[in-house]
């Protein structure tokens, strides 16, 4: 190999994010000091993002097997059987750090990346959902806030705009999502994107490279300097690494949904024609990770010639070509006899395609620049032998998070509390957001945003897929294990409300710095809760993502596991909805619902600190309730179903009223046992998993009582929401006009978009 | 080529920018319009007008200005 003028050293390794020990290990595995190209590739593949150094051991404890699982973790996406010979591929991924830098492009490329993961396994993307978390946006009445609140609104607008731009342009409907605002996310916003795809079972393709002598073909957009940023320390002296030239190396990846649409159609056609041995998309760490991972899975070697990669910019160095994160590119392995056919399909879709390398038997990744060898690394060293670290969890002795700022007076009336909750950014109508998304392209959407607790997509045989994405930071911060169990149960509850049974789960773990013992504790506890809940629901993890080091000068984010769950219902026409339908329908609380005030939305508005721990959860009871609700929805015997989540019973009922345009009259028991947390506030606004608000004929609701606890609490009708609290002396309750609730709910978020 | 919205047609982008500037401390700004810049090298400058009329601008709603840089 030609001698490089100056080899990078330990200082460069540290600048690239490797530790001193890791650098020594790289040198040992290479048998020499790594050169520029090699160091760049190791630093990326051994980064937390690519190697899961701190989480891999923990993730191995998650349940991944199940009767519906067709493709489990380890591939570009997971997949479950949905009947009729079809599988549903799905996965969630984060794009947190890029979105904090440039929210529009960060969110857009996040959507682009997750979509590529779906069609990389041969499935046509059919839906997108997104989970967003930002800091506090300031009061809706304040038109032009300054400081952090202004930045929050900027991030919110940018991210929503970016998601809409990408999803709408590529023709994949955005059918659901969630957005939350909490102080700890102020400096570290979360943008998690989930996508679903559909394929015939036999169409699924894996990413392992195979067949020494086969060709590596790169197709899609040309390669530029996108995303190189940090690696620019390696730039050779003539080009300079600082000042003017540093500005030429953009860190922001710019997405082009039009290019990706062409790429998608091209990929699916190549697969349909049977022209590919394997397929992989280029995401984080570009060619470096795609090529290395394909080689590792296939237990083969790979040669790549950077001189053959189509470039968007002149004078790119080999290491830049290897680490570029230019979007909308795919890598495939092709038998030489099929190369011309592959290039013809690329040409038809106006997508550049070039053979850039080949599969070898060497078990090495070799990077060439024309005839010159510029990098050589053992595949195993790059991908499989990255050191994995143990976590050292320790429960924090003192609270980590400051209490939220109060925005309602502690002594306010129940009515004022309800209106404040409905107007709060976490609960207000999300219409201003989802109206920016096309939710209906591809003509499958049976339930659009705000119509039901989960999105529902029709399948050709008349059945349907249901999907929901749910996370919770504050409750997980109060109790990482139980908070995570609650988040998983909520996701499954949302599926039950539309009549779906869960098939599989994907998760994105968003946490702070795992090298800190209290964060490690959060992570370990959360994963334990995730495993427990997924097992109980028989909804195994089929894939996911981990985003660590989400910390700023003001501290870590709340520990935030985001759960995406896919389910199936046998008859699309019987998909549940959350709106009250008919005056006179009875309303019932279904399930063992033991609300508590701690870590709830009202507690947040009141400025209360997080409790230390949450009450125990009866998972089996919740699972049984899900089944009962699901069956009632499927039977078509009830009018509406909605799970009780943030804001408790009063908010859940208000949401059903608002969606249907009906008032309601309720009598709610207040548990007089003060030790069990029984009081009026808890009864109205306390939160806990396992409770649902159902409406319909009283007899149908009562019949459910044979399976699970059912309490008839009132009926639908009128223009008011009236709740009388039973067991209170003096009499207590709340009375609010539907119009008032409507005004509070509609106004909460709308003002944040210009 | 500089391509601008025709006078008299509502330009909401221009309006949005005009409203945003004072909030940042820039007073006395009026008549903001947002258009497009098309830069190209051409061997037959005589055909530029036709290019604008046919593709680069929509003459119903846009005005264009050709600037030659020899």
């Amino acid at each position, binding site marked *: 190999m030609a001698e490089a003028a100056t080899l990078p050293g330990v200082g460069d390794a540290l600048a690239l994010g490797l530790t001193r020990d890791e650098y020594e290990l790289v040198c040992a595995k290479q048998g020499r000091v790594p050169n520029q190209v090699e160091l760049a590739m190791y630093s990326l593949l051994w980064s937390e993002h690519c190697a899961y150094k701190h989480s891999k051991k923990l993730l191995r404890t998650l349940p991944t097997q199940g009767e519906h699982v067709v493709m489990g973790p380890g591939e570009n996406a997971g997949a479950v059987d949905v009947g009729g010979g079809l599988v549903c591929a799905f996965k969630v991924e984060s794009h947190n750090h890029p979105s904090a830098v440039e929210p529009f492009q960060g969110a857009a490329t996040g959507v682009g990346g997750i979509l590529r993961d779906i069609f990389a396994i041969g499935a046509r993307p059919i839906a997108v959902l997104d989970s967003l978390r930002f800091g506090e946006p300031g009061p809706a009445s304040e038109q032009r806030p300054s400081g952090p609140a202004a930045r929050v609104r900027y991030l919110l607008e940018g991210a929503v705009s970016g998601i809409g731009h990408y999803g709408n*342009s590529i023709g994949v409907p955005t059918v659901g999502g969630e957005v939350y605002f909490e102080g700890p996310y102020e400096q570290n916003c979360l943008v998690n994107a989930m996508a679903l795809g559909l394929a015939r079972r036999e169409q699924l393709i894996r990413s392992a490279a195979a067949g020494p002598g086969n060709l590596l073909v790169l197709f899609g957009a040309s390669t530029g300097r996108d995303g190189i940023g940090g690696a620019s320390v390696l730039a050779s002296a003539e080009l300079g690494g600082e000042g003017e030239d540093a500005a030429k190396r953009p860190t922001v990846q710019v997405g082009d949904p039009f290019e990706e*649409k062409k790429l998608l159609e091209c990929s699916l056609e190549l697969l349909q024609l049977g022209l590919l041995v394997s397929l992989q998309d280029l995401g984080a760490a570009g060619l470096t990770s795609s090529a290395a991972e394909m080689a590792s899975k296939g237990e083969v070697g790979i040669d790549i010639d950077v001189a053959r990669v189509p470039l968007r910019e002149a004078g790119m160095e080999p290491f830049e070509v290897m680490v570029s994160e230019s979007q909308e590119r795919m890598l495939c392995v092709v038998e030489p006899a099929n190369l011309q056919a592959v290039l013809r399909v690329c040409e038809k*879709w*106006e997508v550049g395609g070039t053979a850039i390398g080949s599969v070898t038997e060497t078990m090495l990744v070799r990077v060439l620049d024309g005839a010159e060898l510029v990098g050589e690394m053992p595949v195993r060293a790059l991908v499989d032998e990255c050191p994995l670290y143990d976590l050292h969890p320790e429960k924090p002795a003192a609270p980590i998070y400051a209490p939220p700022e109060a925005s309602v007076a502690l002594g306010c009336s129940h009515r004022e509390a309800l209106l404040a909750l409905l107007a709060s950014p976490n609960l207000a109508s999300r219409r201003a957001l989802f109206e920016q998304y096309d*939710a*209906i392209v591809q003509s499958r959407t049976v339930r659009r945003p705000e119509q039901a607790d989960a999105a529902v997509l029709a399948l050709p045989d008349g059945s349907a897929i249901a999907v929901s994405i749910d996370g919770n930071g504050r409750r997980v911060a109060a109790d990482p294990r139980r908070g995570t169990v609650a988040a998983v149960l909520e996701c499954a509850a949302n599926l039950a409300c539309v009549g779906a049974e869960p098939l599989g789960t994907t998760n994105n773990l968003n946490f702070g710095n795992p090298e800190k013992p209290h964060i490690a504790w959060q992570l370990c506890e959360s994963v334990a809760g995730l495993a427990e809940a997924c097992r109980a629901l028989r909804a195994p993890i089929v894939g996911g993502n981990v985003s660590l080091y989400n910390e700023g000068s003001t501290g870590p984010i709340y520990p935030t596991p985001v759960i995406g769950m896919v389910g199936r219902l046998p008859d699309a026409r019987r998909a549940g909805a959350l709106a009250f339908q008919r005056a006179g329908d009875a309303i019932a609380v279904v399930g063992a619902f033991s609300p508590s005030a701690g870590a709830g939305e009202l507690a947040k508005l009141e400025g209360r600190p997080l409790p230390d721990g949450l009450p125990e959860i009866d998972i089996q009871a919740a699972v049984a309730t899900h089944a009962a609700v699901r069956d009632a929805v499927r039977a078509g015997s009830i009018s509406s179903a909605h799970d009780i989540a943030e804001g408790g019973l009063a908010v859940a009922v208000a949401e059903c009223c608002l969606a249907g345009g009906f008032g309601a009259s309720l009598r709610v028991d207040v548990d007089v046992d003060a030790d069990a947390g029984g009081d009026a506030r808890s009864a109205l606004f306390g939160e806990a998993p396992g409770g649902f608000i159902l409406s319909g004929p009283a007899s149908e609701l009562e019949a459910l009582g044979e399976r699970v606890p059912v309490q008839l609490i009132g009926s639908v009708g009128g223009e008011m929401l009236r709740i009388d609290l039973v067991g209170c002396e003096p009499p207590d309750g709340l009375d609010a006009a539907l119009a008032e609730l409507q005004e509070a709910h509609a106004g909460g978020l709308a003002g944040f978009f210009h | 080529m500089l391509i601008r919205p025709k006078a008299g047609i509502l330009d*909401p982008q221009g309006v*949005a920018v005009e409203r945003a500037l004072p909030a940042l401390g820039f007073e006395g700004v009026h008549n903001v319009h947002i258009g497009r810049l098309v830069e190209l090298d051409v061997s037959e400058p005589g055909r530029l007008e036709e290019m604008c009329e046919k593709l680069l601008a*929509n003459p119903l709603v846009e005005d264009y200005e050709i600037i030659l840089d020899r």
Partner: protein
Amino acid sequence: MKFGVLQFPGSCDEVDALGAARRVGEAELIWHGDRDLGGAEAIVVPGGFSYGDYLRAGAIARFSPAMESVIDFAAEGGLVLGICNGFQVLCEARLLPGALLPNTNLRFTFRQVELEVQAASTPFTRACSPGQLLSIPAKHGWGRYYAESHTLDAMQDAGQVVLRYAQGQNFNGSARDIAGVCNEQGNVFGLMPHPEHAVEELIGGSSDGLLIFESMRMAVAGRG
């Protein structure tokens, strides 16, 4: 009867349009590079982001070989339906008067809207009655219809304003609440909302959009 649905790089709703057309007749996709319209008796130019909406929405698609054939087809009286991006393409191709500009709120907006039928005797609305309200979803960022006043007056008089947004439903700022227009001959029609997404209650919340495809079927049958 046979529909031809054009497909450009970047079209999104062509498959949905195909599905809608197949509920009343036969339908095939026509690749943008083909001049052969495959014997189609009516052409649908679908929604989406042809060519990424680069330059201006529809500005590049209008020059494709398939569109050149469609222009000839229209000149000979063939029925042409342009939906959303398709409407933009037809305006850019000068098959319809006016232009589509960015929504006044500068935002892509997806909303179920009510449209009022203004002209019920066109080949695209004969299955409707005058003043009938159609519930159809709209989803676009660039849908504000514009034409000069005198053009609008002339169109009004000639019965070329086919659909209007009902009271309070015009979210994009279209001149005179215009949602859909046809040419002087009445054989070319463009609208921003998506009738192909309102062909079944379960998915679209309404099947009012089917009336437009049904009207076209009736019109073609009536000629034969």
